[in-house]
C-alpha cells in the first residue's frame, strides 16, 4: 500500500519537476500541467467522461447490447422499461431501445467525425484564401459565406437533403455544407492578423508563392482556434443530425439513429413515454458532454489564458 503511494509520488515529482532532464520529460510535464488545469474544472471532466463513455459504447456495442438492434418482437411491443428483459423498454415494433441507443452511438459518431474532418477543412481553405489574397477574391468568397450564414442551419440542411435525396450520406454532406461558414470566418480573421507579419514577408522575399504561404505558413497558425471552435460545434452537429433524422431525412429505418427513434416514439408520447424520452435523453447528455469538453479544452489550449 505505502509502496504504491510512494511510487505514485515519485511519478508526480518526475512530472512536475522544474528541471526536466530530457525533452520528453519536459513535454510530458507540459501535458501533465494541461491535464491538471483541465482536471480542476469538474464540469469539463464530466464532459470528458461522457465522451469517453460514448466512444466506449460505440466500440463495445456488440458486447454490451442485450438484443439485436433490428430484431422485432411484435408480441412484446411497447414494453415499459425493465419488463420482459428490455432495460429501457421496447418500441412500437418490439425492438430493444437500449440496444438501439447503443448501436445508434456508432451512427452519431460517424456523422460527427465525418463532419469534423471535412467542414473545418473547407472553412480553412475558403477563409485563408480570402484573408490572404484580399481584393475581389476576398469579396466573392466572403459574400458566399454570408449567403450560407443567412439561412438557419437546419433549414439549409433540409434543403440540401431534399435536393440530394434522403439518407445518411446525404445528411452528412448537407451538415458539412452548412457547418463550414463559421470556420471560414475565423480563419479569415486569423489570416488578416498574420498576413502582414514579418515572417510572411520573409518567406515572400524568398520567392514563395501564395499557395505555399497559405498552406505551409498560415494554416498551422489557424489550427488552434479552429480546433476549439470544432469541439464547441459538435453539439450543434449532433442536434442537426438528430433533427434531420426526426424529420425522416437522415438515417433511414431500420438503421438505429437517435433522431429517427424520437420521431417513431412521438405517436406514443403520452402513454408510452419511454419510447421518445430515452433517445432524447441520450442526445441531451451527449451534446452536453461535447459542450462541456469544448469549454474545458478551450481553457487548456488557449495560449493567452491567464495563469491562475
Amino acid at each position, binding site marked *: 500500500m505505502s509502496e504504491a503511494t510512494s511510487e505514485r509520488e515519485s511519478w508526480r515529482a518526475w512530472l512536475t519537476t522544474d528541471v526536466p532532464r530530457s525533452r520528453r520529460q519536459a513535454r510530458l510535464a507540459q501535458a501533465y500541467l494541461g491535464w491538471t488545469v483541465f482536471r480542476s474544472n469538474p464540469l469539463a471532466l464530466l464532459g470528458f467522461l461522457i465522451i469517453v463513455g460514448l466512444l466506449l459504447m460505440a466500440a463495445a456495442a456488440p458486447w454490451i447490447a442485450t438484443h439485436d438492434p433490428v430484431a422485432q418482437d411484435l408480441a412484446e411491443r411497447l414494453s415499459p422499461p425493465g419488463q420482459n428483459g428490455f432495460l429501457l423498454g421496447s418500441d412500437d415494433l418490439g425492438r430493444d431501445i437500449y440496444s438501439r441507443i447503443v448501436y445508434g452511438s456508432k451512427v452519431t459518431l460517424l456523422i460527427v467525425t465525418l463532419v469534423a474532418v471535412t467542414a473545418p477543412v473547407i472553412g480553412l481553405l475558403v477563409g485563408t484564401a480570402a484573408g490572404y489574397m484580399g481584393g475581389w477574391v476576398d469579396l466573392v468568397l466572403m459574400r458566399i459565406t454570408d449567403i450560407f450564414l443567412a439561412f438557419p442551419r437546419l433549414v439549409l440542411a433540409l434543403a440540401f437533403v431534399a435536393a440530394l435525396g434522403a439518407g445518411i450520406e446525404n445528411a452528412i454532406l448537407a451538415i458539412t455544407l452548412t457547418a463550414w461558414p463559421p470556420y471560414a470566418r475565423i480563419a479569415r480573421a486569423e489570416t488578416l492578423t498574420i498576413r502582414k507579419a514579418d515572417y510572411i514577408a*520573409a518567406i515572400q522575399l524568398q520567392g*514563395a508563392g501564395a499557395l505555399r504561404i497559405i498552406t505551409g505558413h498560415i494554416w498551422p497558425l489557424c489550427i488552434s482556434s479552429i480546433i476549439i471552435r470544432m469541439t464547441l460545434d459538435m453539439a450543434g452537429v449532433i442536434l442537426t443530425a438528430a433533427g434531420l433524422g426526426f424529420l425522416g431525412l437522415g438515417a433511414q429505418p431500420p438503421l438505429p439513429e437517435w433522431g429517427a427513434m424520437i420521431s417513431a416514439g412521438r405517436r406514443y408520447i403520452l402513454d408510452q413515454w419511454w419510447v421518445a424520452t430515452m433517445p432524447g435523453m441520450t442526445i441531451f447528455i451527449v451534446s452536453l458532454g461535447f459542450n462541456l469538453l469544448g469549454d474545458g479544452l478551450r481553457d487548456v489550449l488557449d495560449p493567452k489564458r491567464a495563469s491562475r
Partner: protein
Amino acid sequence: MLRVEDLWVRFPKRGGGVVEAVRGISFSVGRERVGIVGESGSGKSLTGRSILRLVRPPGESVARRIEFEGTELQTLSEREMRQVRGEKISMVMQDPKFSLNPVMTVGDQIMESYRLHTDAPKGEARARMIEMLEAVQIRAPERVARLYPHEVSGGMGQRIMIAMMLAPDPALLIADEPTSALDVTVQMSVLQIMDRLVRERGMGLIFISHDLNLVATFCDRVLIMYGGRIVETCPADALHEAKHPYTRALLNSLPRLDQPAHRLEVMKRDPAWLEEPSVDAFA
C-alpha cells in the same frame, strides 16, 4: 551587377496628394559591400524593399531602370520575380523575433527556403541546412534544427535568419538593419559571420543601417541618404573627409575617443538639403 536609376517610392495620403518616401535616387552595386546610412524615415529600408518589389500597397515604386545582371526587374511577371527573390537577391530583416514563423521549426524553415529554388530531395536539403547552420557558427546544429523560434536567443535567431537567406546561394544580399534589434555584445559576432560569408561567396551586399561607424568598418562604399535622396557617396575609409554638411553633422553628433569634445553638436537641418538634386552613386 545591380543598377538602379531614378527610383521613386510614393504613398498616397488620405486626403489626396502623395508622400514621396524615396525621391529619384540612382546607384549601382557590384560584387562589393555598399552601406546605406541615414536617419529614420530617410527611405533606406524602402529602397531595399523596392529592389525586391515588395513595397506594400498602397505604396508604389517606379524607376527608370532596376537592372539586375542584365534583366529589368520591373517588367518581370510575379512568377518570374519569385525566381529572383531568394535565389538571386535575398534580404535579412531587422528583428528575428518577428521574421521567423513561430510555429515552424528552425530547420524546416531553412530547408524550405532551399527547396523553394532547387528540386533537391529532402535528405540533401537536410544536409545543406545542417551545413548552413554550421556556417553561421551554431554549435549542435542537429539540436538547434529542431527548435522553434521562441526557443532561440536574438543573436542566434539572426544567425538562423542569415543561414536561411544564404541557403539558396543568392548573388546579392540586402541586410536591412540586421543588428539593430540585437545586443551590442552579439552585434559584432553576427556581423563578422555575415561579412565572412559574403566575402567567401563573392556576393554583393547592401547594408542598411543608421550606425555610421558600423557601416564605415564593414563596407567598401557608403551612400548617405536624407529625405529620400542620396546626399553624398564616398568610400568608407574616406568617410571622415565627407563634405556634405549633413554627413558632417552626423559624424559630429557621435562622441569620439581620439577627439574628446566637451559637448556634442546638435544637428541643425537645412531645408535646402531637401531641394538638392540626388547624387548619382554609380561605382
